[in-house]
């Protein structure tokens, strides 16, 4: 009976993975398609990748996007984890609302009002900073919610045990809390990363002159039609993300594993 349940679990999971990866296979496949129209398979080519390597705009935009995603997801993981911890341990009534409202607010509104705020209240010049601040604002909630879900129903006695043994709050945090919430931090970081690297609407408004990100570049191109070049950059971006994360996990296994 156990094996039967196991069988169904695997089948369902593989089906979900397939659902996630089938469109992706189309993206990757058509990045090698020798047709501008890009509607049906014509022939194999790598010319889109060659073209891409000479497209400075696109490469610069991709570099910007990666940078912004890395920084904003790191910061929002930190702040979101704090908010999640606070919501779990100290239950300030207003914090869940403060954290959740940016998630609930339509992004176009968030974009316009952040721009109004940066320009007309702070009189800030737009640039990378404004994009980072905006991305962190809408990512904190996602991380906080996931950290809180991890902590919910957690046995409080371990924390007390640690304290009773005379551990300082910092030591308790390092030795008990951190390893405990590490999977949530990893998941939250990954979520914030994809939110940032994919965001068009808010970035469109808060980006300063001459600061381009990949979604901005792709949206304006797609107005005409999706060319295989867009597929190629998406494929590269995924490969790069995968490499980055694998390298990071190799050099800092603890960061990913979350246990000593």
């Amino acid at each position: 009976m156990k094996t039967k349940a196991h069988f169904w679990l695997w089948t369902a999971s593989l089906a979900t993975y397939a659902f996630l990866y089938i469109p992706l296979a189309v993206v990757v496949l058509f990045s090698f398609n020798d047709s501008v129209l890009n509607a049906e398979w014509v022939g194999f080519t790598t010319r889109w990748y060659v073209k891409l390597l000479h497209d400075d705009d696109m490469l610069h935009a991709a570099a910007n996007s990666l940078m912004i995603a890395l920084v904003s997801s790191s910061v929002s993981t930190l702040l979101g984890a704090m908010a999640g911890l606070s919501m779990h341990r100290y239950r300030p009534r207003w914090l869940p609302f403060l954290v959740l409202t940016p998630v609930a607010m339509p992004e176009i509104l968030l974009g316009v009002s952040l721009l109004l705020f940066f320009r007309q209240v702070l009189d800030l010049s737009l640039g990378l900073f404004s994009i980072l601040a905006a991305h962190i604002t809408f990512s904190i909630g996602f991380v906080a919610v996931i950290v809180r879900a991890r902590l919910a129903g957690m046995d409080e006695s371990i924390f007390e045990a640690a304290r009773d043994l005379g551990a300082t709050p910092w030591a308790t945090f390092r030795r008990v809390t951190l390893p405990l919430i590490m999977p949530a931090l990893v998941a939250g970081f990954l979520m914030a990363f994809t939110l940032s690297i994919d965001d068009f609407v808010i970035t469109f408004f808060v980006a300063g002159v001459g600061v381009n990100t990949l979604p901005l570049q792709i949206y304006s191109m797609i107005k005409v039609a999706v060319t295989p070049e867009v597929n190629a950059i998406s494929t590269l971006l995924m490969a790069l993300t995968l490499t980055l994360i694998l390298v990071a996990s190799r050099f800092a296994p603890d960061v990913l594993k979350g246990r000593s």
Partner: protein
Amino acid sequence: MSEPRTQPSGLTKWVVTLPPTAFLLTFFLATALIVVVAGFRETGEFGGLAPIDSLAALTLDAYHFLGGDVIYLEIFARSFLVAALTTLICIVLAYPLAWLIARSPKRRRDFLVLLVILPFASNFLVRIYAWIMLLGPVNLLYTPFAVVVGMVYAHLPFMVLPLYTNLEKHDPALLEAAQDLGANGWTRFWRVTFPLSLPGIFSGSALVFIPVLGMFAVPELLGGTGDILIGNLIKEQFLENRDWPLGSALSIMLTVCVLALAGLTAWASKRGLHGTEAVT
């Protein structure tokens, strides 16, 4: 559940609470205020907002306009329906996957999580266009079905990840104990695992349900002639129609609805939990 003791951690509380609060107060609350006020302002002659001279310039026009019209209510209802359906499908798809990941050997877990999120490191629009290519030839493009598929696809990781982080921590020993007591697979699942994973389901649902409501690209690209959602309506006010007060008013109504719903769910789940505690 014992209440956490607070006396040794007064400082810790502020160290943990203050930074995110300060950040959100600066970058979000101030911004939100602009929005709330915008909902009460007049439209400028050529769009945007009319200059504001005094408090007398504020008006309830936008709300009157929306309030006196069932058509907007209909769009709200439709959007909540699509969001609920998307959330439900996400739960069904995500649960087995999250479970599988949570029960795999430790060294494999992070890789499996990475596999879930990896497709989302490509580009959102490119993925939606991939769906156009997949759904077009089978005549499913430009239908409500296509909209739901696109919504589920775009939000699935936001269900899988919270569920996984929640399921991962459950003690397998608890399940074994249940098994020793002779509970069979389904009973064990419904009585032990499922209630324990409720916080994961709730957080995942919040992270799926809420963003779906504001989404406009999916109905625009995959939907047919009748697929308009609240996200499209709001976008139209800010762009094509240049009616910011109306857009703000719609957004505020949406946000209030969502927060009320979230508050209600939290309250209900708390009552529910206490209820089960009382039973056991």
